[in-house]
């Protein structure tokens, strides 16, 4: 029997994530920490395995070290396979032509040979910057039932935000008659989630056509999808209902973390039906002596201070008299005695000195204008000296 895979997933993980500023100075966006013990890429990878897709190409380009280390052989997601499994796909040097991934479509184009190894019927294209749980298998079933050439997952967004997304204009039967990338005057509120299923032969055909077009930006949303539509291919929308969040900005990343909290959280990580897998570090359980309320605390933490309405990553230390409120601490952060952290996102391995003040109370800080809406951001591995102040809304990537 010839070995093949019905559906291969290709995960676009090369984006720089420039709107996360200091958080992506030296790691790719999909490797950014989320929800105390995860990284963003855990969500699409877990969705794949939970949907029965065991062959995933991860396309990396920008600062891939942490991401490559993290994905490794794919074992935490059960993606270490003899045939299939997870593969890191970086741009490579070829005999005639060497190039970086020029756009999303070009990145997939450069890996057509990888996909063809598995002789797939379908290809699932994913991006590495969204937090959600989705059964791709249901979407694939819809793709097959509709006899589509391309199925685009979409969800309703508030009309006033629609111009930030790729917008689908659909017929009553769900087929798409127009695709507009970030339109100024959106005609509908159905936003593309950046999740596509293609019938493989069609994908390969249009990627090759796109590659031959010198005027193309080699982007799915801008070029490939409109080209398929113009050529009369059957494009169908797939409505997703459930939690989905693009965490490409500081404020959306903060919100998505806060969405995990509360008695009835908007996004429940505790739901055991579709477990999100991650490369769990080897830390003992969290030690808690202080006051902790309405928060998530990961293993390895030592909490002797106060934590309110916050998400605390693996191995954080919050010393006596320190207060962390409305904040996200990523992992191995040390908040020394008497320091206070408010309305902030603190990246991994940051140390905050004694009696330092980082950020301002949410009621005041959130009124600030600026790149982060008042959220204070401390970049990876920096340290804030004793007694220092970091004003609300600052983005810091050097020692203070």
């Amino acid at each position: 029997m010839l070995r093949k895979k019905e559906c291969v997933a290709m995960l676009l993980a090369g984006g720089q994530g420039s709107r996360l500023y200091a958080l992506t100075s030296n790691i790719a966006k999909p490797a950014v920490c989320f929800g105390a013990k995860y990284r963003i890429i855990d969500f699409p990878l877990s969705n794949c395995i939970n949907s029965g897709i065991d062959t995933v190409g991860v396309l990396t380009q920008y600062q891939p070290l942490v991401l490559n280390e993290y994905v490794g052989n794919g074992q935490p997601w059960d993606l270490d396979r003899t045939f299939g499994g997870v593969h890191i796909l970086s741009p490579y040097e070829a005999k005639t032509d060497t190039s970086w991934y020029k756009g999303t479509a070009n990145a997939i184009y450069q890996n057509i040979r990888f996909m063809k190894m598995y002789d797939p019927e379908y290809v699932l294209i994913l991006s590495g910057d969204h937090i959600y749980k989705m059964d791709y298998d249901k979407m694939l079933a819809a793709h097959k039932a509709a006899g589509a050439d391309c199925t685009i997952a979409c969800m309703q967004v508030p009309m006033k935000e629609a111009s930030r997304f790729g917008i689908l204009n659909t017929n009553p039967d769900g087929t798409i008659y127009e695709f507009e990338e970030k339109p100024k005057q959106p005609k509908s509120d159905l936003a593309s989630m950046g999740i596509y299923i293609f019938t493989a032969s069609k994908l390969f055909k249009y990627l090759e056509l796109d590659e031959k077009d010198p005027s193309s930006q080699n982007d799915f949303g801008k070029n490939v999808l409109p080209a398929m539509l113009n050529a009369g291919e059957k494009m169908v929308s797939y409505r997703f209902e459930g939690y989905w969040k693009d965490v490409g900005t500081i404020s959306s990343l903060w919100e998505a973390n806060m969405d995990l909290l509360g008695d009835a959280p908007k996004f429940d990580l505790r739901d055991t039906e579709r477990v999100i897998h991650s490369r769990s570090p080897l830390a003992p359980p969290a030690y808690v002596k202080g006051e902790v309320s309405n928060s998530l605390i990961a293993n390895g933490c030592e909490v002797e201070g106060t934590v309110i309405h916050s998400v605390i990553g693996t191995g954080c230390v919050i010393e006596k008299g320190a207060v962390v409120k409305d904040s996200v601490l990523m992992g191995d952060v040390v908040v020394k005695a008497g320091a206070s952290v408010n309305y902030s996102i603190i990246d991994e391995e940051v140390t905050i000195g004694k009696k330092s003040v980082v950020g301002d109370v949410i009621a005041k800080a959130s009124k600030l204008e600026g790149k982060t809406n008042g959220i204070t951001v401390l970049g990876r591995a920096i340290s804030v000296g004793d007694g220092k102040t970091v004003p609300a809304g600052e983005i810091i990537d050097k020692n203070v």
Partner: protein
Amino acid sequence: MSSAVGVIFSSINDESVPELTKVRSKASIPFGGRYRVVDFALSCMVNSGITTVGVITKNNYQSLMDHLGSGKEWDLARKEGGLILLPPYSDESEMLYRNRLEGLKGASAFLRKCKEDFVVVADSDSVYKIDYSKVIEQHAKTNADLTLVYHEHRCGDSNSYMMFETDENERILTVDVNQHSTSIKKNYINVFVARTSYLRNLIQTAITRGYSSFSGDIILPGVKTGNVYGYKYEGYYQNIDSLQSFFKANMDLLDKKVRSYLFGERDIYTKINDASPAKFTESAKVSNSLIHDGCLIEGTVENCILFRGVKVGKGATLKNCIIMSENVIGDNCNLAYVVSDKDSSVVAGTTLAGCAQKPYFINKGMHI
């Protein structure tokens, strides 16, 4: 190549903690919120550069197998060596081994194949962190037949420990098996090092001569020849030989010094289970406790060890309890000095109390 192999006994003195070994071997007793007792001996071997470990099993080793799996968490899933389970070897008498020597017989095929010069043999009923490579170093230097690791504090409840006295070069002079003497302070912790060839011969001799007691037939005569040495281990050590000492060993982890000694370097390996981070609600009040990923805390928790996925309901109060994974403690319960095995539940409004000497024990999978 590594210079030593490891051999771990997973089922010695199972009967000393009947509550916890009803459903498992001693090695797989859950400990410290996420570990199994075997993790300490096994991780220490790995951290000492040992890459081949045989685990001698006996009864009820399903849970141990489930825990160890392929050994990948200890980096022991190898083509060469790695983790090797040594199930009970039955000879014509068709009985399971009754003692250490008979257990070692089952490992003789494994030992025959080993090319390493030294072998570290350890029980897996204790919590400690020892660098076996130092023991091997001393063993090689003294050219001893056997090097027995000892600790100067009494660290268990049972009276069946071997104690001994050494000279200034750590050579063992006298051995006291029945603890008649009160002046002897060096407690053997059931870890020894030997040359692989020496141990192989020892087992062969034991088989041909029908020896049955490791201490009586091997150590005592060995000491008389003057070539058995002690190695002093000075770090944290706690033997789990009763429910009471199990309770104490867990509670010791609430001491920062013990915790950072054992786990500070994050090199005690264990099986990984994915669980979401622990969730504390508005009504949670937690002090001096260890809380593992997957827990949901809505009540009050004081001086407790909570394993993965424990739910503590609203208005419930837990004091001095050890609650193993996936327990559900209902609203308004009041628990003090309770040890609850895995997958159990306590219905809302229940009051249960034990004491440090005799914790109230809830069997695995019970509903109270």
